[in-house]
């Protein structure tokens, strides 16, 4: 655990907590092991939802750990879990985009189709960048109920299947589909109101 920065294991032992209110410092192979122990399952599940292949997902998660090691420091994420999950999601989507020849998971394609109906690429591209859209999306999600928000994010951020979401929340699959449909409809109306031509 020697090196230019202390591992967060050491910091945790000193009473630090990785969270919103504290900085976190990352480094060393022990830190990677500990990260894998804490967040490995989440990362693997997220990547597998996107890539539909256990092997590809494992590689992607390993790449994410490497990226994490390289980025911290100098970056100091507020929350390591969210930061890592974002890296895993980003790398997995990039890999998916790169391996176009590979067969894609039907559940993922379905979620793409669902969101494309809200905001087709070509119409949006000229109007705002990703950060602006993320900001609008964040504002929209904050005004939704916690359940609608979580179900939406489970579907389109974590790419969970409808069945998986139903089991997670104790809902029927039809209830999940209906919730998602109504949330997408509200999102479309929200974006339109905010000046995005949908």
């Amino acid at each position, binding site marked *: 655990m020697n090196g230019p920065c202390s591992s967060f294991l050491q910091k945790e032992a000193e009473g630090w907590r990785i969270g919103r209110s504290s900085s976190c410092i990352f480094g060393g192979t022990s830190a990677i092991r500990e990260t894998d122990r804490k967040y490995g399952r989440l990362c693997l599940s997220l990547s597998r939802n996107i890539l539909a292949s256990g092997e590809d997902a494992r590689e992607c998660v390993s790449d994410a750990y490497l990226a994490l090691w390289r980025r911290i420091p100098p970056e100091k*994420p507020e929350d390591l879990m*969210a930061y890592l999950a974002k890296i895993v999601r980003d790398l997995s989507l990039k890999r998916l985009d790169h391996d176009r020849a590979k067969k894609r998971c039907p559940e993922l394609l379905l979620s793409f189709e669902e969101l494309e109906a809200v905001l087709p690429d070509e119409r949006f591209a000229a109007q705002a960048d990703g*950060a602006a859209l993320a900001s609008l999306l*964040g504002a929209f999600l904050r005004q939704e109920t916690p*359940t609608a928000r979580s179900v939406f994010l489970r579907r389109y*951020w974590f790419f969970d299947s409808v069945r998986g979401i139903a089991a997670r929340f104790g809902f029927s699959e039809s209830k999940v589909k209906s919730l998602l449909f109504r949330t997408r409809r509200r999102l479309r109306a929200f974006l339109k109101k905010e000046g995005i031509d949908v």
Partner: protein
Amino acid sequence: MNMPKLIEAMNELDDELILAAAADPQTKAKAPLFRRPLPAACACLLVLVLALAAGLAWQGQRGAAPFVLTAYAAQDAGGPLASQLRPGQAVPVSAFTAENGLKGAVFSHAAQDPKAPASVLILADGADAEGTIRAIAGLELERGTVYLFCVLPEDGKAGHSFPYLLRNEAQNTVTALSISIERDGDGYSAKIENVVTTEQRAAS
């Protein structure tokens, strides 16, 4: 198929939104009343049929409760076995386990208003009622049915009696009874005792 712009943009969402979605849902997941798979529709239909049948059978009987209490016992296959509880007659019941490990016997009766939302009454003997309610809150139960979750003691050796009071506004009566649960071999048996129905007096 191209990736929708929204999918890419979502990676820039604030951490707090991601963390909240990654955490366990506030509405308790699944919230099964019983651990073993329950064909809820069949069970509810069974309860309804039993309630109607027993309601007719009990009409006019002295000392009988003016409602049907149904007890549930786990079976090796299929859904739980629902039995009518008659005064003084023991029927098998099982200790069902809530998601937090809390054990209890389950009974139900039809609510006076069939359109009323389902409710769960916790009958506990000195247990942490608030915590218990939290533990099994979020159950998706059948409308118009009152469920009783009688919390069994940890040791499970001694018998326990749960007093229960039901007010029938239509008939202007109050029925008091006690649900007695005892160890019976590997399982439990339950019976209702001391059923007393009295006319409700108007407050002076």
